[in-house]
C-alpha cells in the first residue's frame, strides 16, 4: 500500500521543525517513530502534503534523572525506556514501555509521538495521567509546560498548536512508600489493548494515602477514575473498600462495543484489571519486586 505522495522535510533541530510547521501550515505533519502515522497514511486516513521528519534531530532521545524528576526526550523510543535503569524508580513506566506492541514497534515508536498522536488506545497517556507529568511543548520562539491532564483534549486531539511540538516529557518521581502497576489486556502482542488499567498509589502503613487510577481504551481518551480513587484515598485497603473502588472504576469506563469485545465485556475486564493492578501496586509500595507484563495469549 502506498500513502498519498508528500513532500519530505528533514529537520536539523526541534526549533527548525517548529519553524517548518509554522511555514507549511495545516498540511504538514511531524514524523517521529511513525508506528501510528505511517499505517494511517498507508490506509489514507491521514494524507499530509508535507512530512517534517524529526528522526535526524540530535539529542532528543534520553532518559535523565534530575532533581527528583525523570525527563524523557520526545524521540526516546519505547525500547530505550524499557532498557533504561532509571525507570526502576517508577516501575509503572517500565510496565508500559516493555509491553507496548512488540519488539519491532518498541524499537521505533517514541513517547513524544505517542502522546502527540493521542490515540484513544495508546498506552502512555493512561499511565502518565496517574503520575505528576508535564509535557513540554515548544514552537520556534518559546516553550511552555502543560500538565498531562490539560494536554490530552480529545481523541487524536491535544493542546498543541499547529506550529508546536513535544520536546520533553517530565515525570516527578513519587515519594517513598509508593507503588504502581499497569496492566493491559490484548488479544495478541501487536494489537492495541482491549482495555487497560494504571494504578499508582502511596501507602502510609496500612492506609492508602494517595491514589490515582487511569483507564485505557474504554473512552475517547484515557479516563481518570476519580470516584474509584476517592473510594480508597485515606482508607485501609480491605475487601470492602477494594470492591467499592472496582465498582466505581467499572462505572467510570465508557467503552464501545467493537471487534475487540462488547461494552459489557470491556467493563468486566476493567474491573478485573483494576483489582489486580491495585494489589500489585500495594505490594510494590511495600518494596516487593513484582514483574508485570501486558496480558496476551
Amino acid at each position, binding site marked *: 500500500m502506498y500513502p498519498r505522495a*508528500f*513532500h519530505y522535510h528533514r529537520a536539523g533541530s526541534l526549533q527548525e521543525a517548529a519553524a517548518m510547521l509554522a511555514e507549511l501550515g495545516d498540511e504538514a505533519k511531524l514524523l517521529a517513530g511513525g508506528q501510528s502515522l505511517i499505517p494511517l497514511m*498507508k490506509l489514507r486516513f491521514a494524507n499530509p502534503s508535507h512530512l517534517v521528519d524529526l528522526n535526524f534531530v540530535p539529542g532528543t532521545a534520553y532518559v535523565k534523572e534530575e532533581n527528583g524528576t525523570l525527563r524523557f526526550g520526545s524521540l526516546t523510543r519505547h525500547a530505550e525506556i524499557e532498557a533504561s535503569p532509571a525507570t526502576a524508580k517508577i516501575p509503572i513506566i517500565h510496565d508500559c514501555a516493555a509491553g507496548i506492541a*512488540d*519488539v519491532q514497534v518498541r*524499537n521505533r515508536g517514541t513517547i513524544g509521538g505517542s502522546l502527540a498522536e493521542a490515540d484513544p488506545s495508546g498506552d502512555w497517556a493512561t499511565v502518565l495521567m496517574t503520575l505528576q507529568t508535564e509535557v513540554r511543548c515548544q514552537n520556534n520562539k518559546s516553550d511552555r509546560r502543560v500538565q498531562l491532564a490539560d494536554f490530552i483534549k480529545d481523541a487524536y486531539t491535544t493542546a498543541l498548536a499547529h506550529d508546536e511540538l513535544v520536546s520533553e516529557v517530565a515525570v516527578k518521581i513519587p515519594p517513598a512508600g509508593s507503588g504502581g502497576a499497569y496492566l493491559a489486556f490484548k488479544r495478541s502482542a*501487536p494489537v492495541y489493548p482491549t482495555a487497560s488499567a494504571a494504578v499508582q498509589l502511596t501507602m502510609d502503613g496500612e492506609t492508602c494515602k494517595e491514589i490515582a487510577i487511569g483507564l485505557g481504551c474504554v473512552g475517547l481518551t484515557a479516563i481518570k477514575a476519580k470516584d474509584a480513587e476517592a473510594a480508597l484515598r485515606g482508607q485501609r485497603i480491605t475487601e470492602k473498600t477494594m470492591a467499592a473502588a472496582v465498582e466505581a472504576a467499572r462505572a467510570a469506563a465508557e467503552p464501545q462495543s467493537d471487534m475487540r469485545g462488547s461494552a459489557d465485556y470491556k467493563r468486566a475486564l476493567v474491573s478485573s484489571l483494576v483489582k489486580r493492578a491495585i494489589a500489585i501496586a500495594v505490594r510494590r509500595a511495600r518494596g516487593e519486586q513484582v514483574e508485570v*507484563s501486558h496480558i496476551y495469549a
Partner: protein
Amino acid sequence: MPEAIEKVSIKLTVNGKSHSLAIEPRMLLVELLREAFDLTGTHVGCDTTYCGACTVLMNGAAVKSCTVFAVQADGAEIMTVEGLEKDGQLHPIQKAFGDAYGLQCGYCTPGLMLSTAQLLSQNKRPSEKEIRKAIAGNTCRCTGYQNILKAIQLAAQNMKGA
C-alpha cells in the same frame, strides 16, 4: 495533493554493501529492498504493522520495514535475511531453523530469523519466556510456534562462544 514531489537522495548500507540513490519520499523501506535491490527475501505479509514478515535489522534493531519510510534509513545499516549467510555458509540461526523444522511454508521465516538475530545479539541465553516475548511481533500461521522456539533455543546453543 502536492504536485512535482522532489526525490530525496539517500545513502545506506544493505548487507554490507553501500548504495546511493534518489527515491520518492513515500517509498517504504520494504519496497526499496524488494524493488530497487531485488532482495525479495523480505516479505510483505499484512502490510499493516502486524505480522512481522517484513522484519529487517536497522542499525541492529528489528523493525517492520513496511512501517519505515526508506528516506528514514538514510545513513543506516540494514540487514535482510540475505545478509545472514556468509561465503555460502548458512548462519547458525538459518541452520537451526532447518534442523529443528522451525518452518513450514516459510513465509514468516525471514522475519523470525531477524527477530532472533536481534534477541541473540543482546541475550546469549534467552529463557523460553524471553524468546516468546522477542518473537511476539512475528506471526506464523503454520507451525504453532513450538518448533520455532526449539529452533531459537538450538541457535542460541550453537552460537555460544561463536
